[in-house]
């Protein structure tokens, strides 16, 4: 009886499994259409970067060149893209460390203390979520000029930090509030002060939220265009996005060279995407995936 039953079940399961293996054609076709739309420009950028400048116009729309060349990459590297890489990395690392450090301190205070001043501070940060960067850029420019940081890499950091704080604080506060009270109580009983609790309890437990905010802010800073555009002038302090935009003018019709530069600029993020896709996508929608 039991054997007969399981055979019958297996028979019934067969068409269902077959149906699961053969996807529904309508979503499949639409899904493939979007695949072409989303992926083709990226693909075309890459195959163009492997073309010679002379062969660019006659190249195939779909196939990589039969004799791919890396001369465009060598040209871009000789043109000093390495410096812009370092500039971007410098601003990104310092900004992200500062954003996360000051936001973690503030988030701890906001999550743990109910005093009115603290909660008003939180309200103020939330208000900051609504301030578009564009709206404050003119006074920021005036301020950075006045304090003598115009046209330096250091001048890019404070505004990046200021605009990274609100969302970072919000995410960390939500996370720290979820840490069970008993854990805090036991540390308080042990006589630990706020800084010790933050370092020994909150910091290790907040790792998932910290990864999210590090990724989110790193991408924001790495890809930011408006601050470097307005706060710098000399080519030796350009970050990657601004340098790319300037390449456009310099390279003019050398589209393969330009595409090589674009590819190099996004390479670190593609590598990150390959090794940690889930965390990267989580970081991208940080705070909005809500």
């Amino acid at each position, binding site marked *: 009886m039991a054997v007969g039953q399981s055979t019958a079940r297996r028979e019934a399961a067969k068409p269902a499994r077959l149906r699961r293996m053969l996807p529904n054609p309508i979503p499949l076709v639409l899904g493939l259409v979007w695949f072409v739309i989303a992926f083709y*420009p990226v693909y*075309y950028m890459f195959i163009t970067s492997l073309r010679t400048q002379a062969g660019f116009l006659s190249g195939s729309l779909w196939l990589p060149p039969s004799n791919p060349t890396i001369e465009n990459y060598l040209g871009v590297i000789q043109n000093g893209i390495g410096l812009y890489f370092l500039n971007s990395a410098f601003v990104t690392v310092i900004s992200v460390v500062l954003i996360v450090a000051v936001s973690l301190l*503030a988030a701890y205070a906001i999550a*743990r203390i109910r005093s009115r*001043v603290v909660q008003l501070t939180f309200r103020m940060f939330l208000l900051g979520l609504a301030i578009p960067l564009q709206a*404050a850029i003119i*006074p920021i420019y005036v301020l950075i000029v006045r304090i003598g940081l115009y046209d330096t890499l250091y001048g890019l950091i404070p505004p990046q930090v*200021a605009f990274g704080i609100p969302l970072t604080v919000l995410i960390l506060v939500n996370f720290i509030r979820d840490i069970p009270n008993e854990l805090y109580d036991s540390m308080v009983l042990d006589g630990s002060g706020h800084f010790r609790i933050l370092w020994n309890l909150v910091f290790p437990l907040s790792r998932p939220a910290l990864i999210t905010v590090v990724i989110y802010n790193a991408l924001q800073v790495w890809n930011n265009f408006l601050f470097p555009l307005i706060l710098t002038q000399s080519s030796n302090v350009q970050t990657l996005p601004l340098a*790319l935009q300037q390449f456009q003018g310099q390279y003019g019709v050398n589209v393969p060279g330009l595409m090589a530069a674009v590819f190099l600029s996004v390479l670190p993020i593609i590598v990150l995407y390959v090794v940690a896709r889930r965390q990267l996508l989580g970081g991208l929608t940080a705070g909005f*995936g809500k």
Partner: protein
Amino acid sequence: MSRRLSWSISLMLLPAVAFFVVFALGPMIAAVYISLLDWNGISTPHWVGFGNWAKAFTDSVTLHSIFLTVQVMVLSWIVQTPISLLLGVFLAGRQRYRALLGVFYFLPLLFSAVAIGLIWASSMLSANGALNSFLQAIGASSLTNDWLGNPNIALYAVIAVIAWQFIPFHTLLYQAGTRQIPQVLYEAARIDGAGTLQQFFYITLPQLKYTVVTSTILILTGSLTYFDVIYVMTGGGPGYATRTLPLQMYITAFQDAQIGYGSAIAVILAVVGVLLSLIMIRLTGFGRMESQAEGL
């Protein structure tokens, strides 16, 4: 939970507050003050009261850029919302081929706005770019166009590129939202004999209500500030064809050196942005929005 504001707590708040007040909130307030000045950034400023504001609402270039910005907002919503919603529902399915396609769908998210602008402007939409070559290859030469150089088309080309840039982000939101929908709802519907389309319209769509609201407001507030892609692709041109409000602000303040007038435009941007964000908080509430984050 303590209610006391101790020294150590103040010390913890101080660095974040200092950065935020000096480099974000302060400048925002200063923008309101500067908007009341006639100033080129160098010489002595003159107080003009609401002169710049009056100008913003009478100057034909600024009025035109407000009109363009509203167009970008509305069209971006119309283009991005249905596509993102369908793609999100599509990717929420657990089929392996969908997960594989998703890896490619999200690629545009990795690129800076500048990189996206350059890819589209110089290799896809240029006169000898891929789109025109494709149209010629399929025998539709009459449809080829100077996509970014034709003032009647440039705005739509820009909106399309912005959609390409942001649809993956909204797809992620809808994917997460769809995965939050309890499976029992679908099981019950199937027992009642509901087909795939009925399940979509009677379960998926209503259950995604808050995601739609969140995504909508992000598109609307985002449209106010789209700058990078437009600046890189067209610089606001040809003529004034793509000079939206953020570009008008930038050009006025930093190219024409009208810092006061540019600030008035910046404050208009901020006020509209804050109003839209307040509507977002009003309609969704942070608490309810949080519960939708877990499907990621």
